[in-house]
């Protein structure tokens, strides 16, 4: 049986820590990654002074610089507080309110991606155990429903005229235009338009149901990736923020997943040590199968061949198990976000390449390659670190308790 989750070090200021905060793990991760976006893209600096506001009330502050500075300080301090685990919900409420006030205070500041950030942070700040992640989930679905509906009801989207016109200044891949030239006029733009509409509705509907959620997230990532590859644009922070918010649809393990490995293998022991070093939450309980009381119905022969991970009664093995360990480790998301947010040089546009490689690595398409690589290493594991075998923990050694 998997051990119960423990909530440790409540007062920790480690930005990578997520357990024991006033938001559940997936929402805390959403808040922190969005905070990284705010700091990494200097969004706090862009907070506006009132200028042509949506509500005339804000014109009272038109000639004072204090309003804009107040918003900048609120967003900056809020983002730092979120990262340092200080009054997380209150900090989210402050950030969200600042973005929404900025949007209302200036029509020229209005951008959907900024408003989206404001709405998500605002709803994170209003989190209650009773509502769970559904507020953020509803926000994401509302955006896709509205965006899909707006496109569907627009004749220029349905006819492909919008996409055709937009592509000539937004798409910088000549292959797209070469492909378009093979087809009759407007055929490809119309196909792209309808594909976008269908994808947006599919994401919205798919996210509603537990069974289709992973599929919907996959389509959402594909949509973001496709747009980025075609245009090399991030659409403000939409390219980062929307995929981050899909984490609100992920169910984190209710109990600590158990990793069963071959204790008679020095390489496996080294791997355990390496993986545990990056498992700051101590989420995974590593056990040599030779000493485990419960093998979860897996035969010792299978355990000798492959590493197994058991999470909430689901079993993963080999490369799949490592992939799950990465996906349940917050550091993975911080690392991926950092790689994607790195400034691009003039000649090397790495962002879309990084995004494609990451998507490919975690997609089922890469699984056969990953499994083959895993099998190769597993077969030769005793040769890789020869002389470091038989590192079984003595029976008196207390098992890892999380």
């Amino acid at each position, binding site marked *: 049986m998997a051990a119960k989750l423990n909530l440790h070090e409540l007062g920790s200021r480690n930005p990578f820590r997520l357990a024991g905060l006033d938001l559940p793990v997936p929402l805390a991760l959403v808040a922190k990654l969005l905070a990284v976006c705010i700091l990494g893209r200097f969004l706090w600096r862009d907070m506006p002074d009132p*200028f*042509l506001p*949506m509500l005339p009330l804000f*014109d009272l502050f*038109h000639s004072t610089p204090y309003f804009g500075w107040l918003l900048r300080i609120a967003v900056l301090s809020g983002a730092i507080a979120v990262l340092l685990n200080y009054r997380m919900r209150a900090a989210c409420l402050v950030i969200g309110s600042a973005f929404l006030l900025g*949007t209302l205070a200036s*029509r*020229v500041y*209005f951008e*959907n*991606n900024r*408003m*989206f950030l404001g*709405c998500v942070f*605002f*709803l994170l700040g*209003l*989190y*209650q155990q*009773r*509502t769970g992640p559904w*507020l953020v989930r*509803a*926000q994401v679905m*509302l*955006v896709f429903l*509205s*965006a899909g*509906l*707006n*496109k569907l*009801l*627009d004749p*220029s*989207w349905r006819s492909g*005229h*919008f996409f*055709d*016109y*937009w592509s000539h*200044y*937004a798409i910088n891949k000549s292959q797209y235009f070469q492909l378009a030239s093979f087809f009759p006029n407007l055929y490809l733009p119309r196909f792209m338009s309808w594909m976008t509409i269908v994808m947006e509705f599919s994401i919205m509907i798919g996210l509603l149901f537990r069974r289709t959620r992973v599929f919907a997230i996959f389509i959402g990532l594909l949509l973001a990736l496709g747009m980025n590859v075609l245009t090399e644009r991030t*659409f403000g922070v*939409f390219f980062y923020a929307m995929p981050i918010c899909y984490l609100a649809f992920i169910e984190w393990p209710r109990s600590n997943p158990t990793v069963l490995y071959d204790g008679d293998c020095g390489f496996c022991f080294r791997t355990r040590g390496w993986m545990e070093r990056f498992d700051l939450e101590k989420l995974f309980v590593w056990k040599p199968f030779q000493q485990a009381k419960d093998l979860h119905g897996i035969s010792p022969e299978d355990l000798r061949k492959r590493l197994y991970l058991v999470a909430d009664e689901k079993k993963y093995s080999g490369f799949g198990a490592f992939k799950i360990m990465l996906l349940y480790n917050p550091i993975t998301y911080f690392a991926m976000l950092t790689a994607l947010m790195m400034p691009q040089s003039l000649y090397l546009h790495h962002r879309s390449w990084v995004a494609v490689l990451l998507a490919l690595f975690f997609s089922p398409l890469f699984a056969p390659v990953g499994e083959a690589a895993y099998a190769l290493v597993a077969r030769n594991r005793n040769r890789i670190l020869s002389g470091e075998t038989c590192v079984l923990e003595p029976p008196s050694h207390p098992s890892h308790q999380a």
Partner: protein
Amino acid sequence: MKQIAAICFLLLQIVSVVYARFVPSRWLAWAPNDYAIGYKMQVHIHGRPLSADEIGKRYSLLSEGVYENPAQNMIDIIRQNEQTYGRNEQAEVELAYRPNGGPVQEWRWPQN
């Protein structure tokens, strides 16, 4: 209380999305990058044409380019400016725009 506030907040957005179906602008209505409006604007104040920089300062918009919100959003910005901050300058604005690859349209301030 928080739950009610959150639900009201989401409902408000739904109202805004529905309202947007009946007006040409898309403020707070979740239509991200759904438009491509190629445009060029000319502004005269007391007969003197404003430079691109001056137009940028006046409206926080480029004097020409592609705007990724409905043209009505841009018109709202110009009109609000001319009705408030620039009220006494009697600016004359000519905005030629091409929404989503369609035919070129024109909008002028002051409106007849």
